[in-house]
């Protein structure tokens, strides 16, 4: 979960963060507010998924944490130091959505180059390279020039670069882009291992199914605002209740349920919308008290994709 008050373990802390992109020529008249007064924190050993439709502000938030852009208002710290400071960047690993490398460099040369930029000694770079090659299955293409790489190879190399300094905070923008199913499973296992070793990970992704297998902590962003945090999403998790009856389905639905609750009805089956899974026993009890002869009850809870669509539809 997202611990808002635990300062001992907070790796990222945002307070009232606002980002407005101003047009140099037209000033405020063409300004775009990408993030509006966002406050959140990400803790050690936590994976946070940033979800939201295109233009919601996910990449802006990642870029702010990475120190690539300045906040218009608010305060942002990474490992206790202001974002963009050298101290903050020392504990940061960043993987962009579309990684790009110097085409003439091999993957090995790129890793050596980034190791040097991190200020690692030659021996540490070699050790880190060996570790990355093994972890990310890069043996096949480590000495090939980057210009020949597929999207999946680029993603692996970009992740290896982000992990070069054993970061305390890992920022990933669409990390599973272009990876094959085996690569996706390996990536998931790697991220879970990193989480277990205490690395805080912030992932922005549209692959909600993948994200769901990785974490239950989400931040749903919509038009620059945090609509819902992961803990609220889960506790308020909704679903669909399928009730099989002996008979009189239509009568029961009309008598005991409000029209907004009824998702589907026939003589022997009812589909009931459930706002909160905790309400299910009460609903079933009411049905029985109202004379329904129930054969079976089946609860289908929302997955993250359903939650995403529900939250999105609520805002539209």
């Amino acid at each position, binding site marked *: 979960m997202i611990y808002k008050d635990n300062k001992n373990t907070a790796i990222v802390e945002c307070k009232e963060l606002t980002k407005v992109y101003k047009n140099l020529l037209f000033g405020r008249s063409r300004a775009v507010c990408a993030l509006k007064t966002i406050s959140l924190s990400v803790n050690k050993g936590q994976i946070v998924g940033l979800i939201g439709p295109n233009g919601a502000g996910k990449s802006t938030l990642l870029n702010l944490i990475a120190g690539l852009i*300045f906040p218009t208002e608010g305060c942002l710290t990474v490992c206790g130091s202001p974002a963009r400071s050298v101290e903050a*960047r020392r504990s940061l690993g*960043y993987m962009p959505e*579309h*990684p790009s*490398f*110097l085409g003439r460099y091999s993957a090995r040369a790129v890793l050596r180059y980034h190791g040097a*930029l*991190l*200020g690692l000694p030659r021996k540490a770079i070699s050790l880190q390279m060996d570790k990355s090659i093994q972890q990310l299955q890069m043996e096949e293409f480590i000495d090939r020039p980057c210009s020949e790489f597929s999207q999946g190879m680029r993603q692996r190399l970009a992740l290896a670069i982000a992990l070069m300094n054993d970061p305390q905070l890992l920022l990933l923008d669409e990390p599973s882009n272009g990876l094959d199913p085996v690569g996706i499973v390996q990536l998931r296992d790697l991220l879970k291992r990193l989480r277990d070793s205490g690395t805080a990970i912030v992932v922005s992704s549209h692959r909600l199914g993948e994200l769901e297998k990785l974490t239950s902590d989400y931040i749903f962003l919509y038009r620059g605002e945090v609509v819902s945090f992961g803990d609220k999403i889960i506790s308020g998790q909704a679903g669909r209740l399928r009730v099989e009856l002996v008979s009189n389905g239509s009568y029961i639905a009309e008598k005991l349920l409000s029209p907004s609750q009824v998702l589907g009805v026939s003589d022997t089956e009812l589909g009931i919308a459930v706002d909160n899974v905790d309400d299910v026993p009460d609903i079933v009890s009411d049905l029985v008290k109202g004379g329904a002869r129930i054969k079976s009850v089946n609860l289908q809870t929302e997955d993250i994709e359903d939650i995403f669509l529900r939250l999105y539809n609520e805002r539209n």
Partner: protein
Amino acid sequence: MRAYELIKETFSRKMYIWVVHISWLILYCFFWVLFLEEETDFGKFLFLWGGFLLPLALSTGIFGDDIASGRICVLMTRPFWPGELYIYRLLGLSLQGVLHFILAGCVIYIVHLFIGRGTLEGLGIWLFSSCLLFIVCAALSTTLSVVVSRAFNSLLLFIAVASAFFIVSILTWQHDGDTGTKVFTVLLKYAGPPFELLSKLAEGEYGKFSLIIGQHKLIKGLACITHSLVLTVIYSIVGIILLSRKQFTYELN
């Protein structure tokens, strides 16, 4: 390690950098063998070709390419002062310039040995002036690359310099002696790349203690060298400030 990798990167970031070096050294050879009548012509050619066009060719997209491709986003998350990135890249360019002029000097010497035309007198100072001009132009082009998209920094600088010379020529022809013309000419002479000052230095026009500031006497040649170095530093500081203040995102690119 960091300095070494960043300097090395300026040599190997584009395949055509080596093509430029090699083809231009061959070009000097041909120019010397086919066209040279007096030794000073070669110095002037080297000065303009190597001192002005070479840094433009080598620095094209030096930051613009990184910004356009998004590579800069990863570079800027690395734990070092962004100024280091600028300084080491400029050093890499300068090193290429110095090596290029050393090789150019060798080529000229070898060709001179074979064909025996002209003299090598004054070649050293022409090479030195060309080096200084190279560094100033490289700094200006690198700074432009921070703000100009992709590889258009060199083209923009070339057009700006050519336009400035064209305007100066028109102004001195039409309005010679006007205050406006004088101000524009002086501004270009001292704030722009020091073509005139360095070519005069190479031609040996500056005598001893020819620049007097109050009670201080200065060798004008030395002042000219200092001026070039100060310009390089100013252009670099502007570039570093721009790089440090710039925001980098894929969306903005």
